[in-house]
């Protein structure tokens, strides 16, 4: 017997409705479920990022349903595991948009995966939320970004580090669109503050030997180093940096460290002192965060794995839910209007406000330092805007824009 996912969903949906009729809860009896799709790497190399995001998706959907759903209907999550394989992203994106006909998609982790699926959703008029920190610049009315951009999470590092340590910088970055564009923003922010970039080096994701790099950095003797390195192999840099004793000599900062809970993989001696910036720290003492972690603990157990982009995903789904409530319908134009109404929610990492012009989010940003395997908060800026993307992008004026802008240096 051939059982397609759709048949299966139909059958289980019918069962759910039947169950609902039998009970006293008839709340979800009207209309069919709202479908929320996700494409995330729940296995493979990137699952350290993806797994907690999948859990966050499940949790957000369950919580919204427990609170009565949206528009009197229940949300059903259709989550596909892209297995860290970029080809599966395009495949499942097509499936979500054309076969499952979902009402919204929250997904994509690396910038490469986002660009692989963004146009598919745009063509299919399927609203798309990308909930991960990234290199900035995506200007697409169909797409909402709730992760941080360089103006939010890179500029504060540059500002802090240049003030504290000096103005000569070495940049190390992953060799794909995230690293390349982030490196440009780094150069831009450093030059803006009259600093000099001693060198910029790019590393393919499988490079795990940084001996020559570390020697070259010493020869350049910068005041500090910024690492926009990504993935498991690049972790070797932080280890080799510490093993050579450099962590006591030249300060190290990173735009990505901590996002995949890297601070837990390094010993305190290796990780201490690395400066990062981002939207979320588990150490934040706000009631919203404490309650969020308690709920996570109740649902999944271990809260150690909660990281920034899991929280971003959770917040992104709640932003979408707020838009649905505001629009009162799932109809596309009404939803876009709601998104462009300055909608705002309170998440575990603070207030998330969608900027109508860019469809990016103003976020609370923490400057943090790794201390004893924890991301200790140095200072917090409330509601930092995505100023980088806003330099180029105005979707209210140019609703048909469909570009990713990069800074010119």
């Amino acid at each position, binding site marked *: 017997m051939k059982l397609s996912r759709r048949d299966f969903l139909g059958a289980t949906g019918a069962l759910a409705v039947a169950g609902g009729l039998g009970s006293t809860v008839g709340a979800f009896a009207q209309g069919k479920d709202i479908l929320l799709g996700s494409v995330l790497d729940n*296995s*493979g*190399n990137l*699952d*350290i990022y993806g797994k907690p995001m999948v859990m966050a998706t499940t949790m957000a959907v369950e919580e919204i349903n427990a609170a009565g759903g949206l528009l009197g209907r229940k949300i059903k999550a259709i989550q596909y595991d892209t297995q860290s394989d970029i080809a599966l992203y395009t495949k499942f994106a097509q499936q979500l948009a054309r076969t499952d006909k979902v009402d919204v998609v929250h997904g994509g982790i690396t910038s490469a995966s986002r660009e692989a699926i963004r146009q598919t959703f745009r063509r299919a008029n399927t609203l798309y939320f990308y909930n991960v920190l990234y290199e900035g610049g995506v200007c697409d009315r169909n797409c909402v970004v709730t992760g941080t951009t360089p103006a939010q999470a890179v500029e504060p590092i540059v500002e802090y580090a240049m003030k504290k340590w000096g103005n000569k910088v070495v940049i190390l970055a992953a*060799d794909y669109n995230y690293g390349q564009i982030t490196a440009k923003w780094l150069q831009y922010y450093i030059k803006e503050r009259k600093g000099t970039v001693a060198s910029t*080096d*790019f*590393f*393919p994701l*499988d*490079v*795990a*030997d*940084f*001996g*020559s*790099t*570390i*020697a*070259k950095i*010493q*020869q350049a003797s910068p005041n500090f180093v910024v690492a926009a390195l990504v993935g*498991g*192999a690049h*972790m*070797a840099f932080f*280890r*080799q940096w*510490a*093993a*050579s*004793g*450099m962590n006591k*000599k030249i300060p190290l900062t990173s735009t990505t460290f901590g996002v*995949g*809970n*890297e601070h837990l*993989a*390094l*010993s305190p*001696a*290796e990780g201490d002192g690395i400066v990062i910036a981002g939207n979320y720290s588990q150490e934040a003492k706000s009631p919203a965060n404490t309650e969020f972690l308690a709920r996570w603990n109740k649902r999944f157990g271990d809260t150690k794995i909660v990281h920034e982009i899991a929280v971003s995903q959770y917040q992104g789904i709640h932003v979408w839910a707020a838009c649905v409530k505001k629009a009162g319908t799932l109809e596309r134009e009404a939803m876009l209007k709601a998104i462009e109404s300055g909608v705002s929610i309170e998440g575990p990492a603070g207030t998330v406000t969608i900027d109508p012009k860019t469809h990016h989010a103003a976020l609370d940003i923490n400057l943090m330092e790794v201390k004893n395997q924890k991301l200790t908060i140095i200072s917090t800026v409330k509601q930092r805007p995505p100023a980088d993307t806003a330099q180029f992008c105005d979707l209210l004026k140019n609703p048909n824009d469909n570009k990713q802008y990069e800074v010119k240096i």
Partner: protein
Amino acid sequence: MDYAAVVVLEILYMISFIALVSAGLAIVFGMMRVINLAHGEFVMLGGYTTLACFRAGIDLWFSMLIIAPLVVGIVGLIIERLVIRFLYGRMIDTMLATWGLSLLLIGIVTLIFGSSAVSVPAPISGYRLGAYQMGGYNLFIIAVTVVLYVGMWLVLRFTRLGLIARGAMQSAEVASSLGYNPRTVYMVTFTIGAALSGLAGGILAPLTGLLPSSGGGYIAQSFIAVITGGAGAVIAGTLTSSAMFGTISQIVSFASGPVLGDIVMLALAIVLLRLMPQGISGRFFRNSQ
């Protein structure tokens, strides 16, 4: 001047790195002509064995130098008994089987340890070299590689075991007519090869960190080194090609970046294999080990 010393040390380290991860493969391929595509996973297993022992509170040196090769050697023995021994002389089948094996090993390790990057801390701290700060652990890796290769050479050259191994390698039929079962020789050789891979994995774990998929990073370099080295003389060939590739990739890395370093290394391997299809040892070291 200091910088020159730094470059030389980094080159020596890179040579040792390649030679170390290639040792197990060199033995298995050179002696038995078995292409073991699960070689990288043996290295990875050595790393995870070290990690597990370290977490259990066992001394790190003992874990990486004794337990890691022992455990991976036993795994190799089991695999040889269950899979490899049925496939001797069938190169393509062996490749397929070991490829499947590598996927299986990755899966098992992921199930046990999860797929996030983990590491053991480097047990040796950095030291100063003039104005430069260097990784002390690199020196240890260089030392281990030297000891390992000298040891391999001594065993092959001067012991009865080495003589039998070389005999079985040159002509399995003659060896068997003299009363040595080549199948037993192969079993021992494969086990030793696996153990050496485990040793490499254990020793490199503090430096590179561990992922279930990290075996893939070793396999390319070790295959290039071993194939270019040639099967004519396992030790001399692998050492020469490691020295050549390590030097060139590191010099290019210093001059530009690691990307070009890898590209130049691959290009060089292609050119060399075109000029010397039997590998370096097939051309120059026909009568040594």
